[in-house]
């Protein structure tokens, strides 16, 4: 396992370089620059030139890429144009807000999605209903799902429609935590519904493949309960795609969930990403994408390690490699 972890870390460095390079040239190809967002309207040629010089945008492409790589090697991506301070600091400052939504959402989705997905394999009307509901929730655009939730009678009327705290009250301590929780419920619920639907569908498919296998028949034949056969025999064998799903989605939750954050004006990475792109704040965009990339890789590594510890075959293969 240590070997795999070290190998992955080496791969991660190469991967980060590749993503950063691709991103650098992609952003280069996007029309428009950051100057208008900084100066506003009416900037004359002289003002534009001065800002371009200050930001180093007037240098040749090769030189800028070299400088970009140099910074990257020292673990930096430069200063955000909008905020005038290190872009990575800005990204880290926005991360906690995103985690407040993402972590509970991932956990709840797993906790609720897994049993429902397993339940949906059994024959009968309930299974049909679960699958239908999951399909609807999954197919719904997530920003629309969020908007519908806050317009709905009931939950939509009890909870605030935007923000992380009540801007009128300046709470501290426990009252602050309660206030954040109160505001987090609707966006979190949106994320949970979406990810839960995904989990139900993947789990059901993985379990269905297992339930027709001979060893499951054996389980039933020796008199094990349905629940025991499902959870103790079939689930461990069907787990890889489910674990992989969560590994993959960690990155989505962190850099992503963008639309949910925008809908609920949640002060996390999602809103920041949209603003950074609109303002052509290249260092900030690079910072956000690299952090998202890092978390995706971390998620995948965790998923792989989890799978290895739950699957002897994988462990042996890795050991033999």
């Amino acid at each position, binding site marked *: 396992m240590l070997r795999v972890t070290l190998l992955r870390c080496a791969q991660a460095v190469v991967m980060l370089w590749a993503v950063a390079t691709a991103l650098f040239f992609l952003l280069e190809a*996007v*029309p*428009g*620059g*950051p*100057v*208008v*967002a*900084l*100066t*506003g*309207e*009416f*900037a*004359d*040629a002289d*003002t*534009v030139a001065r*800002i371009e010089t*200050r930001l180093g945008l007037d240098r040749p492409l090769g030189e800028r890429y070299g400088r970009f790589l140099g910074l990257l090697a020292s673990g930096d991506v430069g200063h955000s144009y*909008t*905020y*005038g*301070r290190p872009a990575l600091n*800005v990204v880290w*400052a*926005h991360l906690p*807000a995103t985690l407040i939504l993402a972590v509970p959402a991932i956990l709840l989705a797993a906790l609720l999605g897994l049993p429902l997905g397993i339940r949906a394999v059994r024959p009968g009307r309930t299974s049909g209903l679960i699958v239908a509901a999951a399909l609807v929730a999954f197919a719904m655009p997530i920003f629309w799902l969020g*908007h519908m939730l*806050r*317009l709905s009678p009931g939950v939509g*009327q009890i909870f*605030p*429609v*935007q*923000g*992380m705290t*009540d*801007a*009128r*009250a*300046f*709470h501290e301590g426990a*009252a602050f935590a309660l206030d954040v929780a109160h505001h987090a419920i609707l966006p979190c619920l949106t994320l949970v519904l979406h990810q839960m639907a995904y989990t139900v569908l993947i789990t059901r498919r993985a379990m269905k493949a297992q339930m027709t296998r001979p060893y499951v028949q054996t389980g039933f034949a020796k008199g094990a309960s349905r629940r025991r056969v499902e959870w103790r025999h079939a689930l461990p064998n069907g787990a890889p795609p489910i674990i992989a799903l969560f590994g993959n989605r960690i990155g989505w939750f962190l850099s992503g969930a963008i639309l949910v954050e*925008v*809908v*609920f*004006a949640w*002060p*996390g990475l999602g*809103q*920041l990403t*949209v*603003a950074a792109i*609109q*303002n*052509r704040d290249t260092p900030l965009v690079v910072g956000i994408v690299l952090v998202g990339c890092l978390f995706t890789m971390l998620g995948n590594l965790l998923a792989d390690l989890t799978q290895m510890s739950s699957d002897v075959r994988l462990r042996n293969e890795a050991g033999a490699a």
Partner: protein
Amino acid sequence: MIQFRHFVRSTILGTVASAAFGASALAETTFIVAVPSDPGQFNPAITTGAHVHAVADSIFNGLVALDENLEPIPDLATSWTVSDDGTTYTFTLAEAAWHDGAPFTSEDVKFTFEEVLFQHHARTKSGLSGVVSSIETPDPRTVVFRLSSPHPALLRRFDVTEAPILPKHLYEGAGDPTEAAQNASPVGTGPYRFVSHAPGDRVVLEKNSDYFKGDTTDVDKVVFRIIQDAETALLAFERGEVDYIPRIGGQNIVRAEDAGQVLTATAGPGGGNCIMTVSFNLESELLQPADVRRAIALGIDRERLNDQVLFGRGNVAEAPFSSAIGWAHAAGSLSSLGHDPASASAALDAAGLEPGADGIRAEIDMVHFPTFSKYAELMAQDLAKVGIRLTSRPLDRPAAIDAIFKARDFDTNLISYCNGVDPEIGIKRMYVSNNIGPIPFSNASAYRNEKVDALFAAAGSTADQGERARAYGEIQTILAEDLPYFWLVETVRITAASDGFTGYRPWTGHYLETIQIVE
């Protein structure tokens, strides 16, 4: 009914909240403004960006303020005199203090203009740095501006949006003012002082209890909440989570009125008196003949644009210059350009643009910001009726500016050109031949007319308003003939505001200076 429900809900929630958190939290009056983007920094003297001015103007003052008719009234300058030849302005300054306690003096004014505004504030730099020949400070309460030639727009360019005054003692020696650490924790003289900034989330200001104009507001704290999505901001306003949205779309007027009040103004922080304007690319062969441009103009139903996009709150443009600058506006100069599809078709026939088998005479594109899509859609419908296929090309802001002003890759484009409070500020830039690309919001059509250049030069250097008005009148007659642009509708800034307060000044950067609780 909605208001009643709102009342019941807020009463119940208010009661619960006061029971839960105690009365101390409610003793302070907090006013919440929804802004669509983070200002990033708070120095209004280095940018004309509306996202900065919407927040930072409340922290600072200009030498003058503007009243509802956009006429200058005292701000940091309590009075002023102008020499007979219009080249010397002497201002007497108020006894004001910076938020850190240091006294405000004439040295601050001189420093701000010379070292910051004339270097970095795009509008003031281009408009005034060549006009003001010297700034003198005979004593701490007096500042004298000497001009190289009369500049009648001077006073209107001295308000907090165009010329905010910065503290010299904090910026002098602090290096490049665009990078100064001060920009993150501003110190001003204004009605509110800076408290905190949580990037991407909020900016908090508090009432300046030592404000030199006295006790102008009942609000203790102002919170600017960053809410990118317009629908979310409106919903928050309806539910009472937000008290003020500086700008809402015309389609939301009814909802905003149900939940509070709707204010309209032609100006506001970051520019005003805007006209939604179509630019014709005069370098495009198809659009070079003025007859073709005139035919396109006749094909556009501007009344419908006002009704269906602005919900009747704007005006069909009657002249190339905004009607809000009354003395310079040549009303009726566009009267021959009412909607007339029959004449438009006839003119296109005469220009040799016969319809093909599919009924199409020509295809043109229109580059615009995504927020203007509704205008483009309606114009495409109108022009289809006269055989012109108009393709809408919505591009996000930086990309559209690039396509229009740098790459010049468009047949037509749609821009909201803000005229400002004087033709020198926001109008001249569209027409003079020395202002063609690559600068954003310059002469997009690439219009070149020596006579127009000369008239603008003459009008900008005489103090006599009658003489200026004559020159501007002549310019507008020529423009209506040449049609380098087509002026669609004069838009208004529509603001949603809580009806729990009064005294809003939505036409200026100081829109929160005088808000009071409605008893």
